[in-house]
């Protein structure tokens, strides 16, 4: 029996949609991670002979930015629900941190190039660039989604749809943060 009503239906629709969407994203990134694990397990030597992995500063900077942006988003979401004035500042802070993350990714790619790792230099370079490009593509989508919240956040009332929207875009953003941490651990730490 399907006896959902009004707000409850919207909430259920929203959580089903987000669950499926995040499962879809997980399958995409899961495929990449599976590929990495296969290469890594079969490699005679890792990193491959003659390849130097760059220092941790650039990727760690990216990690710091994306973690901070997630935290800032969390603060924006909770102040939005209470309609606190701070929500506007947190909105801009989140956007700024996302831009910083994007810039730090460009910095990371140039650091990679400096130590001779290019997209066409073997499987390690392929993975470092390929995986981070795909992640970056999602970051652009995330940035656009969060930017589209401008009206909702700056509005003087809190609607049920608005709360759902902020919650859902937040889920996507936090998910992208988790994916970045996995990539950071895989590609630069281990």
């Amino acid at each position: 029996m399907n006896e959902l009503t009004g707000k409850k239906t919207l909430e259920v629709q929203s959580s089903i949609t987000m669950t499926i969407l995040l499962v879809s994203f997980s399958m995409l990134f899961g495929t990449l991670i599976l590929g990495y694990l296969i290469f890594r397990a079969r490699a005679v030597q890792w990193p491959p002979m003659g390849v130097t992995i760059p220092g941790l500063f650039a990727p760690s900077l990216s990690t710091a930015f994306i973690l901070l942006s997630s935290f800032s988003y969390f603060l924006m979401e909770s102040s939005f629900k209470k309609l606190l004035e701070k929500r506007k500042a947190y909105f801009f802070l989140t956007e700024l941190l996302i831009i910083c993350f994007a810039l730090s990714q460009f910095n990371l790619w140039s650091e990679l190039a400096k130590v001779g790792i290019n997209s066409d230099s073997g499987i390690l370079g392929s993975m470092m660039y390929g995986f981070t490009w795909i992640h970056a593509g999602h970051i652009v989508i995330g940035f656009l989604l969060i930017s589209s919240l401008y009206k909702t956040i700056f509005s003087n009332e809190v609607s049920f749809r608005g709360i759902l929207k902020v919650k859902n875009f937040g889920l996507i953003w936090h998910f992208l943060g988790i994916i970045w941490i996995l990539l950071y651990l895989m590609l630069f730490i281990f």
Partner: protein
Amino acid sequence: MAFYEQHIHAKPKTFLSKYVFSFDHKVIGKQFLWYGIFFLGVGGIMALMIRWALAFPGVAFPVFGSFLFPETGGVIPPDTYASLFTLHGTIMIFYAITPILIGCFGNFCIPLMIGARDMAFPSANMLSFWLAFVSGAVLLASLFTPLGGAAGGWTSYPTLSTLIGSPGVGQTLWTLAIFILGVSSTMGAINYITTVITLRAPGMGYFDMPLTVWGLWLTAILNAIFLPVLGAGCLLLIFDRVFGTHFFLAGAAATSGTGDPILFQHVFWIFGHPEVYILILPAWGIVSDLLSFFSRKPAFGAKATALSMTAITILSTLVYGHHMFTTSMSPLLTQTFMTLTMTISIPSTVFFFNWLGTIWRGSIRFHSPMLFSLGVVFVFGLGGLTGLHLGTVTTDLYLHDTYFVVGHFHYTMAASVLLGGFAGIYFWMPKMFGVMMNETLAKVHFWITMVGLNGVFFGMLILGYGGMHRRLYNPFWYEFLQKLIPINTFVTWSAILMGFAQFFFLWNFIYSLIKGKKAKDNPWEVGTLEWTIPSPAPHYNFDSIPVVKCGPHELGNPALGEEKDFQYQTEELAKV
């Protein structure tokens, strides 16, 4: 009172908002139908060209040959041949069957059959179609690039699909087109799943849903989970082709780390095997309903059929390795995949027997949708049984990459799905367009198609068993295959016959749209929710959301009396 009032868009007034950028699920369903029929024609012509080259090697292709291939005097050249079989497979699977079975019937039927006014997300639904349109345009554009269209096969295995095997832009555009289509289908899938879960009419439990909706819903679940896997593979392939990465390029310098072409096969088949079920589940669902409707009996074991389809959906995710038995896989893995593959026979047999149980001693009405449904029972039986040979390691090693494989998957993915699609078009035509199609023409279409189709695909099974490999431009360079020329000629004439039969459909379809007999609200006398409203279905479907009181297959109930032998889902179940 409606349990949940969906946001209702104003009735469209302009041509653009009514027919082009429509939010209405019915219009989007019809857009997918036209899109699918167009590509069915393109893919069909390609199939005939392939068959011509195999039956009459070195002979100019009739009529268009000298125009298309002036440099070879009208003979299809080898590189074009490779492109033809690549695009034929791609177009038929992704651009013809998927839009018709999933895009058209999914969009048109799901809200109507569950008693909803539209999809959960109408805007995403519209976007899904237009992304599919962009994808189709990119694919067609790839044909006109300097080195021609993609030529790596519909599976696009590296190295055939990397710059080594396909240096032209065509293959890159192919990969991009598939990626875009994947995004479109994923959006559609999210919409279908959410709609089915949240917008079923009050009183409609999952087992009160028609089996058509079950099939489409399970398909959507598989699509949402596995299309991103193909998407990842496509992105990496694009990177290899455009940015010089090495994901799928093997090299001698193992210590410096190179890629692995076999990895793409894993990625492709993790998606690809569920894809078989993605295509066929909607057809199974439609056929399961239609067999009951036209046998004037409740679907035998309807719950078991729904659960069997669910079991197949789950098992389909675990068997992809049987496509890769010849890639030096460890014997432990091959045997594991073989066992899992064989396990699928159990739920398949359950619902196949349920089909037979449904028609057993039924008062069968041999209308065109029923004929096509019976056709599915026949061809799917053959397709399923020949699958056992390919799921078994020992026989697969001999049959792999032969025409036996081509025959098998055409019986399952082409014949079953195509016949199921035609059954659906003939059945829902009254509700879609408000007109009936001509039954005589439909029956002629069915019988000629059945003869042609079996000539083609059974012929392919024999060719494969005789050792003829797929994808060879001219197999008759090999002496042992020269004896198979007559069978190839027979297969080609059968294909021409099958192609000819489709003109009956096209004529019938277009003529009916223009001058067809006006349909009654419920011409087939069945009780699912879409038949409780006028034909064609009005804007926003239901005046008020229906309340469901019984299942979708309440036919032939003795308690109903003499007047009618079916009851609507909105009626209390008649009891003696």
